């Protein structure tokens, strides 16, 4: 892929209800912020990509209505929708359209307005014969997979709670984050309501209204317009079997994320991910998933994820801060969540992370997670690939 970079990012305030804005207005809030951050005007945009899971709002082809919020009228516009990976896949689609030589500056906006729909209903619209009755919705299907992961790897509920606490404490330094629980403790997580054993309320991500945008530029445009572009060093996607029962030990192996990460590391020249990466923004819908992803991403050996979080290796002051933004556990507008991962990783390279900045971050990882086990992996760097 020829050189492509992210030159600006922007996002809304994420909240359980954003009654003050319509869906196009929510999109506009993020788009406007990203353009301002990139120092470009709407007239500079060659194309737009949207990411959104339309059944969560009960809509069809929502780009037709919301596209104008992203300055899409009169421009090429496509919408990408792949479940939770919609946002990361939308970013990756933009990387391809720019690298193909079609465009110089492309805006990607992911958004979701869960308060105008019903996420559980949306997630229950799976295969009507096999899946709908047994594994519908994030809580139920994660309870199945987390139980298996806990049984095989011996992860404890305290270790999972540490992930939940880390996310919410990081979120307290992020003005955009939905959940603000700076003082959350492990005891409070363990005392929270059991949703589906072993997943508790505070182990789970919230449902948020929110939008996030990035500005993607060709190499020439990036060098001209941005002092410190976040170069796309690698972008990989892997999809998986459609039925949860057909996926071999989903969280234990998470072979999609593992293979996508290996391919991306190879392309980006990452040999020892824990040491070579400076910051990671990973898509963890549930606390236990972050532990499983540590293993799939090669940050530790199999079965060592619990010790990684206990040792503070992934805390803000650790060797590899994971989710300085507070992650999906703190804000989850689904169609935006993947864009947020990429935007937060780019923000770190840009050095515009404010209170959540990891000092001197020059290589960042972003991941997306969708449906039962779809995975996207993006590696960004301050140095353009040779």
């Amino acid at each position, binding site marked *: 892929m020829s050189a492509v970079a992210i030159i600006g990012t922007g996002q809304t305030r994420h909240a359980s209800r954003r009654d003050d804005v319509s869906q196009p207005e929510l999109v506009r809030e993020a788009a406007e912020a990203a353009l301002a951050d990139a120092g470009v005007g709407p007239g500079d945009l060659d194309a737009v990509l949207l990411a959104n899971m*339309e059944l969560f709002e009960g809509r*069809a*082809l929502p780009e037709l209505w919301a596209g104008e919020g992203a300055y899409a009228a*009169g421009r090429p516009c496509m919408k990408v929708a792949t479940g939770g990976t919609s946002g990361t896949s939308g970013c990756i689609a933009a990387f391809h*359209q720019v*690298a193909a*030589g079609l465009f110089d500056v492309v805006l990607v906006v992911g958004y979701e307005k869960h308060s105008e729909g019903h996420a559980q209903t949306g997630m229950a619209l799976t295969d*009507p014969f096999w899946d709908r009755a047994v594994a519908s919705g994030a809580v139920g299907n994660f309870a199945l997979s987390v139980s298996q992961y806990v049984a095989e790897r011996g992860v404890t509920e305290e270790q999972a709670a540490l992930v939940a606490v880390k996310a919410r404490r990081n979120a307290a330094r992020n003005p955009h984050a939905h959940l603000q629980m700076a003082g959350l403790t492990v005891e409070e997580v363990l005392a929270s309501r059991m949703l589906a054993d072993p997943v508790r309320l505070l182990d789970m991500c919230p449902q948020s209204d929110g939008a996030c945008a990035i500005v993607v530029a060709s190499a020439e445009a990036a060098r001209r317009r941005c002092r410190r572009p976040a170069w796309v060093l690698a972008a990989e996607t892997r999809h998986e079997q459609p039925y949860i029962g057909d996926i071999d030990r989903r969280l234990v192996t998470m072979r999609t994320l593992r293979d996508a990460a290996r391919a991306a590391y190879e392309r980006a020249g990452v040999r020892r991910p824990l040491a070579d990466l400076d910051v990671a923004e990973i898509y963890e819908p549930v606390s236990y998933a972050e532990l499983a992803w540590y293993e799939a991403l090669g940050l530790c050996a199999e079965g060592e994820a619990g010790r990684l979080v206990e040792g503070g290796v992934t805390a803000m002051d650790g060797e590899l801060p994971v989710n300085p933004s507070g992650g999906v556990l703190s804000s989850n507008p689904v169609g935006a969540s993947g864009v947020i991962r990429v935007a937060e990783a780019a923000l770190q390279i840009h050095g515009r992370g404010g209170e959540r900045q990891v000092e001197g971050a020059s290589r960042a990882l972003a991941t997306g997670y969708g449906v039962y086990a779809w995975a996207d992996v993006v590696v960004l760097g301050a140095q353009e690939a040779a």
Partner: protein
Amino acid sequence: MRRADGAAVAVAGVGESGPLACDPRSIPEMVLDAVEAALADASLGYDDVEAVVTASVDLFDGVTASNVAVTEVVGAVMRPETRISGDGICAAIHGACELLAGTCDTVLVVAHGKASMASHLALTEWAMDPVFLQPLGVGFLACAGLQARMLAEEDAGAVGRWADLAAARRADAGSDAIAGPCSVEEVLASPIVASPLRAGMAAPPGDGACAVALTARPPGAQREGRVLLTGAGWDLEPHSLGERDLRRWEGLRRASDRAYAAAGLDPSHPALDLAEPSCLYAHEEELFRAAAGVGEGVTVSPGGGLFAGAAPVASGLSRLADAARRIRAGTARRALAHGTWGPAGQAHAVAVLEADG
């Protein structure tokens, strides 16, 4: 459009299932048929596919992340797949971008739509602005009617021409098509569905899947009988009908201008000999010709276009497949394939196909 290494995008194989008025099979079964046909046509196997781009619309399928239903049959397990939620021709264009970006050399593009599963036109109301338009019960048919009404008010002969056009397209589609041939008189006697549009002026909805294999053709490897995708363009118009001049498809003009420029063609004389538009209503063919600069000498929809059966989402990709077949058969050298979605042609995407060599 060329890759940095000089490679071009080739349409290596096409396959279709349908369109049928009501396919009794499940969506994965329909899609499997189309994919197997496209791979066989391209002399490729599943192992040769490096990446997949699918197109589907969740509300039309009643399934969240509706490409889940086809992941296995398109060969996307443990492979890169992305899904465009829009007309299927967009998936082909994005697949071409993946080839041009240099991340792979073979992309499988697949689109499906099954109008018989629900009242498709009623579902289109859910694509309308939910504040100002959806509460009025406005869907894509009503918008097409308003557009046709504007055209007919200024042009006394318009409705008669549309009846002629519809009858001609139905005849081109042949007697095996969903609706079958009918006379101009029958079109004019058919019930009004959205004044001044009559039932006979509308392409019959259908169930169908379409698959296209795209490959990178190295420089210097020209071959007679091969088809290249040399240009692409797409565009979104404002949503509100009041913000557009409904008498023109301005979005298509911008989209086709971009595609012609990418293909190195003069937008005022694109030198096409075939056009395969996605026209759901007869009046749209006139809008298409004017916006895309398709002159009288160009053959339009020789197989009846969507009047043979319009499967949602798959329509635009099936136009591309049809155009590729005709170029391969030697009956055309350069074609414009077109897909559209949204009310009154709000969104358009086109691709220029040319004979290789």
